[in-house]
């Protein structure tokens, strides 16, 4: 496990260097193009400052911003005991020293994400729609997937990659607009000497403005997809029950609702890309997540619950070489899968659904009346009638 994290850091570092070089090159040529010859370092400086500020912001505020864009509310054990227990269980399975904070988003679309720059101050957020639709085994699979993102330091990696890609997109955008409106100085003023040089600079600058954002996003998406496979494999290892996650992914993909509060930048953090319609997600270079059907198929045809079983199943399903880092395979414990509890499924689903409903009723200021016959009436704050009847025993409860 420790080696795997180290391997991620190396990869994270290489990625940052690669994308940073791209950003610097873009800055340099933008400077040369708009400022004239010799302004390259100036452009490079601006690019570095943009990147630095964005990184600082994302590093210190990113998780909070993401949680608040999504409208996430922090919960504790008394609010949602089962969710809290499942997160605790997966914290132990992942061997994290601190349990992540648990957040719930009031949205009928089932989805989940992890946030936080270090495992010590991470957070797991799930939507109420997810809680209403999944049973305990499935919920455990989803939480395990998010826990894997935290343990594998994917959030940090995606944060850096995302910020770099974002900075490149912004710079290229600004450059293209500048060219549209004012044009480069090299064409208007510098007629003497360096004609050829500035022409080359101009071509390179334009090419970079068009290609760099595409390239940056491709790097970002490629890394993101790889991390998804690893997180799925880790989830199977943590829970020793691949079917839990597979069946959860199936339900999430088939849900008709569209998640609110998501931006292009935060989409890769979710367990399933919330911006793509289910079924249409193709395995192309511009998707942040691998196709859902393929993820499900790989999980369902695993012969065990370890990394090696996942890798083998991936090869079978895609015909490709393999997807997991060698370090993950090396430490594989070849864990035996455990069996799920199909007959208990709907019962656990109902319990979880009631817990999440009651949490939001409490938040919304609903009144709770326990009727003597065993029903519970939940009266909204804007209820107009002076009394409410119990449909079971006919008792009338005065609301006064």
């Amino acid at each position: 496990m420790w080696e795997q994290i180290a391997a991620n850091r190396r990869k994270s570092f290489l990625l940052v260097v690669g994308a940073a070089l791209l950003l610097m090159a873009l800055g340099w040529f933008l400077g040369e193009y708009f400022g004239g010859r010799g302004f390259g370092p100036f452009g490079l400086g601006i690019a570095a400052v943009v990147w630095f500020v964005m990184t600082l912001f994302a590093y210190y505020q990113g998780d909070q911003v993401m949680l608040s864009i999504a409208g996430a509310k922090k919960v504790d054990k008394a609010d949602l005991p089962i969710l809290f227990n499942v997160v605790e269980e997966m914290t132990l399975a992942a061997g994290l020293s601190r349990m992540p904070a648990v957040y719930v988003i009031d949205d009928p679309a089932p989805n989940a994400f992890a946030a936080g720059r270090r495992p010590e101050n991470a957070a797991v957020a799930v939507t109420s729609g997810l809680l209403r639709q999944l049973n305990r085994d499935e919920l455990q699979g989803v939480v395990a997937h998010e826990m894997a993102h935290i343990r594998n330091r994917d959030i940090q990696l995606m944060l850096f990659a995302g910020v770099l890609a974002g900075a490149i997109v912004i710079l290229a955008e600004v450059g293209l607009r500048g060219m549209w409106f004012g044009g480069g100085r090299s064409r208007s003023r510098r007629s003497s000497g360096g004609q050829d040089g500035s022409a080359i600079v101009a071509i390179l600058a334009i090419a970079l403005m068009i290609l760099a954002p595409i390239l940056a996003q491709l790097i970002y998406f490629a890394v993101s997809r790889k991390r998804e496979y690893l997180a799925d494999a880790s989830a199977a290892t943590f829970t020793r029950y691949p079917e839990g996650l597979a069946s959860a992914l199936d339900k999430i993909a088939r849900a008709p609702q569209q998640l609110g509060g998501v931006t292009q930048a935060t989409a890769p953090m979710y367990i399933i890309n919330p911006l793509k319609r289910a079924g249409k997600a193709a395995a192309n270079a511009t998707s942040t997540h691998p196709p859902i059907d393929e993820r499900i198929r790989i999980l369902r045809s695993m012969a065990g619950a370890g990394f090696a079983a996942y890798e083998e199943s991936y090869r079978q399903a895609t015909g490709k070489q393999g997807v997991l880092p060698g370090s993950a395979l090396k430490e594989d414990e070849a864990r035996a899968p455990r069996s799920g509890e199909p007959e208990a499924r709907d019962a656990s689903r109902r319990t979880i659904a009631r817990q999440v409903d009651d949490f939001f009723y409490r938040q919304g200021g609903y009144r709770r009346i326990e009727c003597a016959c065993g029903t519970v009436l939940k009266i909204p704050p804007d209820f107009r009638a002076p009394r409410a009847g119990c449909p079971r025993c006919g008792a009338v409860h005065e609301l006064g």
Partner: protein
Amino acid sequence: MMFPLLIVLGLIVLLVAWGVGIYNSLVGLRNRVKEAWAQVDVQLKRRFDLIPNLMETVKGYMSHERETLEAVTQARAAVGGAGSIPERIQAEGGLTAALGRLFAVSESYPDLKASQNFMALQEELTSTENKIGFARQFYNETVMNMNNKVQMFPGNIVAGMFNFKNEAFFEVTEEAQREAPKVKFD
């Protein structure tokens, strides 16, 4: 005259540095084993503390199951009396099995199963049982890393010098494994 002496000195320094490196990694592993055990221990204690509550709740409903209830109480007492970690592991296995039987028997008491209090306790106990399982898994992996280092060359030399020992695995007995309560909600 000075030169060979320097080489010998240098070699000694290198050897000591190497030994110190191994020693430090052994200490690190031992601490990690301790941490992992602490995680298991927290959950075992939690289970220990939940049982009186459970007994109080089921007592009224399951008055005909004296033997089953007694077995849980005795298994809990055995855990309380266990001294060393291997002894403790043995006793905890017995408790897991006794609890498993209690939950299996509870299936035939619909009133008990419908009680809010029992449902909450059952979720707590099954989740604690899961947590013990996951923490145990992590603990055993850590112990294996430690024991490999202690037994294999060159770790075994340093381990022998400073009295590092093999740590005990947390194995679940066959019986306990079979009887372990399943995650169930009703």
